[in-house]
């Protein structure tokens, strides 16, 4: 497959996913409703299309893209294709923040994402501090270990709170933890872009350094990378990107794990091509997963994390088998 064909497929696939996301849904489902929304400016279909569905689809796309490149970058950082944006303690911190907000503030709509974001940032800072405490250098193996430990600790506190909470609060917390875009709005999109744009741009500029890191730290140095600085930049930006995603959509697993893996097979492992490809494919993947989540058992909406896991796990198992031969 030539490069032109690959990129046409990726861009075409992403556009098709966005169109699918706009056309299908619980209400105003199908092409006829979509065309009405385009044609009739004063219609209900137009309002739903512009005020509800468009921000939701765009948010799902950029959140997916962000999670994807965060995953790809972290995999290069720890030199392990199984690294996931949530592996480094973030999920525990964000979950604890969310559950605390639900337990303390009830279900105030602003409280959960804000508290989850703060929880994620706290976990990032803790993992980072503990990882560099062992030595002046940031050792990816220590980072993984500390991430798992901090995540488990936060998870334990979260479980304790959930056991003590009442049933309805529990259900809210549980649903939130599985992620979703039902609270999307242009405002939520604005908040996400405010936090995510700089990390995305910074990660893109680190593409060549990520290539060098995959060769091992010492080799990367000899080839011109300031390894310690690069590792810190990548850890902080990828984590911020994930925390921003958590704040607007809860925790959506498997996008950052499965898509980079698949894209390495399609466009190769060099990050100048890999990161943009992962962004397009992860965005499209999450838009499609969200479309399935809100239409498959409508009017009930499945958490999108359930869909990404249901699609992602078998796909991942397949890729893993082929990789390990």
């Amino acid at each position, binding site marked *: 497959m030539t490069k032109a064909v690959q990129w046409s497929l990726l861009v075409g696939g992403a556009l098709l996913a966005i169109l699918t996301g706009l056309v299908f849904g619980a209400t105003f489902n199908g092409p006829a409703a979509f065309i009405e929304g385009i044609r009739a400016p004063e219609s209900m279909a137009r309002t739903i299309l512009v005020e509800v569905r468009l921000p939701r689809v765009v948010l799902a796309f950029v959140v997916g893209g962000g999670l994807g490149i965060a995953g790809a970058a972290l995999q290069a950082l720890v*030199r*392990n*294709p199984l690294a996931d944006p949530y592996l480094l303690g973030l999920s525990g911190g964000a979950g604890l923040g969310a559950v605390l907000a639900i337990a303390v503030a009830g279900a105030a709509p602003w409280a959960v994402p804000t508290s989850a974001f703060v929880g994620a940032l706290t976990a990032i800072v803790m993992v980072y501090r503990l990882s560099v405490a062992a030595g002046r250098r940031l050792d990816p193996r220590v980072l993984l270990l500390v991430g798992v430990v901090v995540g488990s600790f936060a998870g334990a506190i979260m479980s304790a709170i959930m056991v003590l909470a009442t049933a309805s609060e529990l259900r809210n917390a549980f649903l939130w933890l599985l992620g979703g875009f039902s609270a999307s709005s242009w405002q939520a999109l604005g908040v996400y872009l405010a936090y995510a744009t700089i990390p995305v741009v910074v990660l*893109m*500029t*680190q*593409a*060549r*350094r990520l*290539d*060098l890191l*995959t*060769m*091992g730290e*010492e*080799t990367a*140095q*000899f*080839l*011109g*990378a*300031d*390894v310690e600085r690069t590792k810190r930049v990548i850890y902080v930006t990828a984590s911020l990107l994930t925390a921003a995603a958590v704040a607007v959509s809860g925790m959506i697993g498997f996008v950052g794990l499965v898509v980079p893996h698949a894209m*390495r097979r399609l466009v*190769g*492992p*060099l990050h100048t091509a890999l990161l943009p490809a992962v962004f397009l494919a992860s965005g499209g993947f999450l838009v499609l997963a969200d479309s399935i989540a809100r239409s498959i058992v409508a009017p009930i909406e499945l958490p999108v994390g359930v869909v990404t896991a249901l699609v992602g796990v078998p796909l991942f198992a397949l890729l893993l088998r082929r990789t390990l031969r």
Partner: protein
Amino acid sequence: MILQAEHLTIRYADAPAPALSEVSLGVTPGSLMVLGGPNGSGKTTLLRALLGVLPPSTGSVSIDGRAVGNWPRDELARRIGVVSQREEVWVPLSVEEVVTMGRYAHLGPLTPIRAADRSVIQQVLERCDVAELRTRKADTLSGGEWQRVRIARALAQEPQALVLDEPGNALDVRHEMEVMELIRTLVDDGMACLLITHHLNLASRYADQVVLLDKGRIVAEGTPSDVLREEILSRVFGWPIAVTPWRGGSPQFIPLRPGDRDRIGG
């Protein structure tokens, strides 16, 4: 003097003795220095200190007259190419992609690969006899092919100095000789080269200078004929060794078996 160490001492935490003590040496353009010595004598430690990976406990290391720690890594990579002892890849990179990484120090973060870069890549692939492997995945190469690809990548950096840690290790006779010939040509064209090897017989025929390390100290240095002498080698390696001149006069050593001395009457 492109690579220089002065009174360099490296002490690892918890080690009873320093890994290197009071080592001073300098590598000049157009000369090939071979670093030899028994296992654990401090060769790789010295190399890592010279490249700024290990900070000196005392003493100093400078490159082109500037302390190694003060060089930005990308500027350093444009001056010094390194082929380290071991390296493994976990992503399926092609040979061409691996060698292209040698150009990264010459490129900005988002600069596309230019025609000039491609022509350098093509030259070094040919020079290292790996041009026909360019689309092969690095994890399918033989040890010798991988070694030559790594040398090609170091040359793609267009360095003024080349540092190699046992490059001949995985190579058969032909490929090892080709690598040594290549290094000698580069040195004759003005490159500075520091080479760690256990193959002192080859070193003797190619090197301008030999430095022998033992227990972290320089125990002999000079031309091959100065250093590769029976009494020095036997003492440093702790094994009886005979030295005999090869046709051009370069000393060649033969480790002896018990009783060899009596049979050859030495």
